[in-house]
């Protein structure tokens, strides 16, 4: 079971990271490696696209929380897009959805 992580440089310190496949305890470290360095770009924008992510569990949620924290420390804007209803449900049950919304609101960043 593998994941594929595609990184798109949209210029002006703005990156889109699209993950396809299944994120679990085996593949989450790969996501962490692909995502965290991009949260350290001061004043940058990072969007995680989960449209092609077929499965995730708490290991993926942990990476997203880590990314959110790191982005906040580096004044980088981090958001998540393309959630399937299934993944959205996991975000809602765990409270991660509320946390993402709060962080984005407090930063005044439009979630585009």
């Amino acid at each position, binding site marked *: 079971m593998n994941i594929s992580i595609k990184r798109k440089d949209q210029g002006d310190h703005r990156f889109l990271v699209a993950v396809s496949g299944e994120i679990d305890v*085996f593949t989450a470290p790969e996501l962490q490696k692909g995502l965290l360095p991009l949260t350290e770009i001061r004043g940058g924008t990072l969007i995680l696209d989960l449209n092609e992510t077929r*499965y995730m569990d708490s290991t993926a949620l942990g990476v997203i929380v880590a990314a959110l924290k790191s982005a906040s420390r580096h004044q980088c804007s981090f958001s998540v897009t393309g959630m399937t209803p299934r993944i959205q449900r996991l975000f809602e049950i765990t409270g991660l959805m509320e946390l993402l919304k*709060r962080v984005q609101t407090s930063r005044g960043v439009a979630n585009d």
Partner: protein
Amino acid sequence: MTEANDVIRLLIPAKPEFVSVARLACSGAASRMGYTFDAIEDIKVAVSEACTNAVSHGYGKKGTGNIQIDLECGSSGMAITILHNGESFDAGHVLKNLKPIDASAELDKVSEGGLGLFLINALMDQVTISTECGVAVRMIKFLNGDGVGRIANKVSTTE
């Protein structure tokens, strides 16, 4: 789950790369039993979380071991027991502190882990954790279950 059940038993190495094997086996059995798409996805996450805990905490100090996965398929639903003989933990203490992310907390105080058992509890209908020898997490998903919503106090422990 008292009627005669069909049993599937799986033994996997307690290594990250095999957690997906347990997940797919349980998903196959659940699909065969006629669970809804959402219920199958719930089962996949719950099984993965229990196996992930076994991989991450069970054998950390003892080298490698195995995880045993027992699926009992009955007419009312499926009971899944995830068992390992590695490190145990204070289940009572952990279960008392199961909670979602506190969205109002300072970001630096938000933990990146600890959601595994919380999710198992939220997604399954009945959960029992036994820590007498290693850890056994037994969880039941009823065929007519209505899924998430009854998060409070479904988990219990046995000594």
